[in-house]
């Protein structure tokens, strides 16, 4: 693929573009890890927030509140530098970035999904009760299928936040689009000036995020139709 870019854009721009696109791969991987891991935790947290149990409600509420309030940057510093130095271990940037972004994602997604569940009219819950369905049956058979409709658009929108959030992971040495681009911008190579590299990086991030934004907008319109 590199040759193709070099043929098209010449050196060194071709090399830079192909390297940036290759590094964007890790941005995508990290986003997927955070999205899947965070989604799993968020499911548990959301479940704990909607079931009628005060202790679990309180814990899941505190979890969401705490990790929504902690800046992502501080989370990265804490997981990537603070805690490892405190215990005296070395941690791989992949693991540190994965953990911080997963926690960040889980806190926000659980809030989004709780909102989707709360958007369902109370009558639906009461209807489930009237039909002698258990809480779990009501949730799975009646509430969740309807909540899905409200939940998809904001979930996709949040995926954009995750992709943008991964750009901070370079601070703890995670090798992704951001780190490589910054290195190229600092390199004294003609053709890799900051005013070329950074718009290029922005363009790559944009082409990752914008299709999702359009998709989210379309889903939102569709969910409003019903």
């Amino acid at each position: 693929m590199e040759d193709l870019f070099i043929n098209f854009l010449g050196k060194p721009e071709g090399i830079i573009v192909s390297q940036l696109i290759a590094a964007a791969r890790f941005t995508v991987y990290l986003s997927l890890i955070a999205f899947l891991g965070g989604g799993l935790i968020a499911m548990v947290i959301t479940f704990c927030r909607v079931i009628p149990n005060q202790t679990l409600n309180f814990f899941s509420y505190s979890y969401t509140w705490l990790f929504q309030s902690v800046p992502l940057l501080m989370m990265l510093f804490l997981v990537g530098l603070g805690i490892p130095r405190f215990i005296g271990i070395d941690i791989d940037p992949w693991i540190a970035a994965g953990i911080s972004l997963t926690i960040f994602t889980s806190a926000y997604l659980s809030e989004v999904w709780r909102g989707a569940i709360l958007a369902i009219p109370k009558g639906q819950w009461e209807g489930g009760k009237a039909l002698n369905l258990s809480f779990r049956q009501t949730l799975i058979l009646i509430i969740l299928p309807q909540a899905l409709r409200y939940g998809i658009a904001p979930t996709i929108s949040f995926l954009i936040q995750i992709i943008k959030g991964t750009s901070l992971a370079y601070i703890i040495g995670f090798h992704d689009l951001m780190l490589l681009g910054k290195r190229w911008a600092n390199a004294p190579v003609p053709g890799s000036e900051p005013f070329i590299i950074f718009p290029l990086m922005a363009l790559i991030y944009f082409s990752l995020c914008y299709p999702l934004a359009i998709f989210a907008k379309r889903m939102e319109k569709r969910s409003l139709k019903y």
Partner: protein
Amino acid sequence: MEFRFFEIYRSVEYLELLMEGILVSAGLTLFAGVLGFILAFILAAFIYWRVVLLNVICIAYVDFIRNTPLIVQLFFVTFGLPSLLGYVWPFWCHALLALTINFSGYFAEILRSGYLSIPKGQLEAAAALNMNRLVTFRKIILPQTIIKMFPSLSSQFIFIFLTTGVISEIGVNDLTHAGLFIDSRTFRSFEIFITLTILYIILSLIFKISLELLFKNTLGKRG
């Protein structure tokens, strides 16, 4: 494996650094937030009124800002623009410009969707009362939008405040910068980052509460 927070607290120098960092972080965010809101107001008006050509440019601008990370915008504004246009600014001006641009994109989107959420019947009623477009906007659309969208605006403001730590990357002596400096001196990373986290949470709570109070005492009374 022991907490040694006292290494931070006992030094007057470190406490002063943190205090200065708080003021710089909060001040820059607030200033950028206000400037960003003004810019967003203009952008959203162009988009809402479908001003020829300008609305396309504004939509593209808003979409581009919303779909690229703050840190890339910051680096472009700090390292790209000055070498392209040949000006020299202090670091905090670059940070202010980047944050303003970022704020304006998000606020413009919120305002735009607020304008569009006003029911059509009200606009027709205004037209029936012979109000022109400007009066309709000022008397009917704007007040309702601000009241309706205030929660979104304030939570977006706080979300961006929580990411302003990245301006330390270009050498602005904000709260994160102070923390990193203390970390490099003492190597008590865990303690210092916990301290910073708590300070950020407290600051965002102060912002949230004061925004709510401001809303209650001004516009909230009408709505």
